[in-house]
């Protein structure tokens, strides 16, 4: 999950956020959490494609997948294929 946090920071240009300051279960899209928005959601979709070769087939799954770093990591573990 530490790698995933670093990738999120890089992809979203959150350079003022330390990876260790992002809690595993911290909400990504609420004000109490990282406060990300819809553009960030698109960036995270691209991140999954680029780094893990995962395409989200059903957009309705998005809120569940991107709830927290842990939910993202679980989705990656369950769906990751070897990158061509």
């Amino acid at each position, binding site marked *: 999950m530490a790698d995933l946090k670093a990738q999120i920071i890089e*992809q*979203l*240009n*959150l*350079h*003022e956020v330390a990876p260790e300051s992002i809690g595993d279960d911290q909400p990504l899209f609420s004000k109490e959490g990282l*406060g990300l928005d819809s*553009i960030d959601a*698109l*960036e995270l979709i*691209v991140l999954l*494609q*680029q780094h893990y070769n995962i395409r989200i087939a059903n957009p309705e799954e998005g809120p569940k997948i991107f709830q927290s770093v842990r939910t993202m990591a679980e989705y990656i573990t369950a769906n990751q294929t070897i990158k061509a």
Partner: protein
Amino acid sequence: MNIYINGTGCISPQNTAQGGPLLAAPREYEQVRLATVDPDYKQWIDVKQIRRMSRVVKMGVAAANLSLETAGITLPDAIITGTAYGCLDDTGVFLTKMVNQQEEMLTPTAFIQSTHNTVAGQIALLLGCNGYNNTFVHRGFSFENALLDAIMILKEGTAKHILAGGMDEITNYSHQVLSRFGIYKKAPVKTMELLNSPDTGTIAGEGAAFFALGVTSAPGTAATLTGVSTLYKPLWEGEVIGHIMKFLEDHHCTPADIDLLVTGRNGDIDQDEMYEEVAAALFPDHAEASFKHLCGEYPTAAAFGLWMANAIIAEQAVPEAAVFYGHAPKKINRILLYNHHQGTHHSFVLLTAC
């Protein structure tokens, strides 16, 4: 009807964002590419929003905020910008990713931020301004056409306060490409010696300058924007001289009524020849100030020139770093700003003290 310059803001290679006397401590460089002195942009932009902004967006938003602050305006009726190159940095990022990733998996941020009207859009979003919002992309006339649009709207009476500005940035890519055209000096030159340079080429620059324009004056207003005119590709210097005569006549004055000539000399011996011809023909005994050795050459550099000219009227003094020739009179009532970009885009701005 008078158009008042009620507030100004400038981000440039000089310390123009921090306020205080004009060019009190000018920065001297010895290089062919000047970069802006960046203030702490977080004083105007939220941390979560700033992460998506490239330098030109940040400098534009900052200059816009500075001009509104000095004018005491929180919400203008319209926002009009001029930029020749737009958001080059994000354009470069987006195009590079297109190539490297075979047009797949492109991220939205660089695309969204790569359009020329991003700066005007971001200012509107941050201010919550739903009024007229326009960006002119007309190479060396981008800023001047933004000013002309603002003047026309104010004279039509559909707006009382307009935020108008010009900005451009340099990136490594753009500097490399422009260098191939032979626009810049081959070797570093001291900026305070640039205007006496004996060869061709100039130095690259960048920056943003914004103006809060209104039909009524504010407590700190120093000058009115009396007139703006442009001339494209004059065939010879006589055409420029004739244009200036007509421009001044249209505003009920002659060269004798001009107290200070501010020119866009850039240290390129070929391009500066036009300023020599114009000064010799119309303003032989006038004091002359210049600004491109302070901000560098870029298509909207006239915005820096206008910012400086307004500050000269406000302070009634020409800073030593800007003097090119002569001594300005004690009372600086009228300034003619004459700039040309690459010898093709000539512009004239007349300022009058309030």
